[in-house]
């Protein structure tokens, strides 16, 4: 019984360790286009002035959000770690200008394949669906929230830890 008990502890330790490692290790995902379905995002980011900084995806995802709120960062572009968002990978690139976050781009975000995009007429008789795609239309003003999720925060924190 004692051996089984010790074995269980060893196993539990390994499981906990592997979870920790899995959490910290960057996932190597194939780069996903920043668009959904067959649409292609051709919009380039003209706000990027300096393109220094690391493009590595290494680093811990354990950086805290307080780092993200810490104020002055070094100017440049920084690529965050790839984080598992359960439904796919999230990876961001943050561009810092004048010590502040200027632009946050998603290098990877959860991607739905064309085949899984469908409209369930029975479930939603009135609602309609479409894949979102970037526009170049001129607008007077923009409505929207600045997005985050846990995976986003972790990738962003990682990117900003490089800018600190």
């Amino acid at each position: 019984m004692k051996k089984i008990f010790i074995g269980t502890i060893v196993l539990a330790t390994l499981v906990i360790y592997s979870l920790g490692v899995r959490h910290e290790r960057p996932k190597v995902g194939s780069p996903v286009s920043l668009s959904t379905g067959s649409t292609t995002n051709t919009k380039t980011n003209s706000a990027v002035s300096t393109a220094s900084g690391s493009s590595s995806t290494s680093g811990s995802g354990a950086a805290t959000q307080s780092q993200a709120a810490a104020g002055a960062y070094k100017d440049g572009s920084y690529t965050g770690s790839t984080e598992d968002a359960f439904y796919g990978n999230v990876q961001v690139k943050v561009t810092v200008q004048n010590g502040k976050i200027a632009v946050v781009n998603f290098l990877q975000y959860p991607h739905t394949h064309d085949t899984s995009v469908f409209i369930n007429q029975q479930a939603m008789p009135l609602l309609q669906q479409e894949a979102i795609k970037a526009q170049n239309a001129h607008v007077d003003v923009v409505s929207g929230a600045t997005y985050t999720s846990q995976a986003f925060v972790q990738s962003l924190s990682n990117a900003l830890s490089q800018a600190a």
Partner: protein
Amino acid sequence: MGMPITVEVVDSSDSALLSSTFNYFHEIDERYSTYKDSSEISQINHGLPKTQWSTEMQEIMRLCEETKQETDSYFDVEHSGKLDPSGLVKGWSIWQAAQKLLKAGAADFYIEAGGDIQSNGVNSEGKPWLVGIRNPFNTDETIKTVRLNGKGIATSGTYIRGQHIYNPHAPEKPPRGVQSITLIAANVYEADRFATAAFAMGKAGIMFIEKQPGLEGYMIDDAGIATYTSGFNEYVYA
């Protein structure tokens, strides 16, 4: 409220219109900011008796209670024993500020605070104001353009500074599955309070909006798929 505010008035060059609008938002912030110890809402959360609340605060709390009833309790300003009506005050104050501009004689303007917008009249080219809906996956892109024709628009989502909306029926779980929901309503007050509630409902939120008369919505889910209500296309420009 700690958010950027934009005011554009095209049919008047009277800069006093702009400064009085910003002063109004400053007053709102002084009264409702839970980050300021001196604000009335902070004093209330430190025990200020209801009899000493301002008339406006009592009206705001009445509206919050009304909204809670209308949204199956998904809209709730009481979190862990503290009151935070900012989810209603934002839209309400934009709408109030727009009324003040109208009374002062402006007709062609918009007011935007934290991504929620009330527009009136036309833009500097004499055309309807065009409002872009931000791509929740890429904050410097828009994915839809709508014409408001005097109506209000508001988007709820999660913010970089942290989850600001939660599901009161399951406080420990952030709403899942939805990146953002944008609502168009008769005015920004209606759009904002229902957007807050619909976002807290998760994916069921868009069907709730479909059933509400006078509200149209555009919900973007985790997979980048938009689900929108049957009347939303009437506002779509591109």
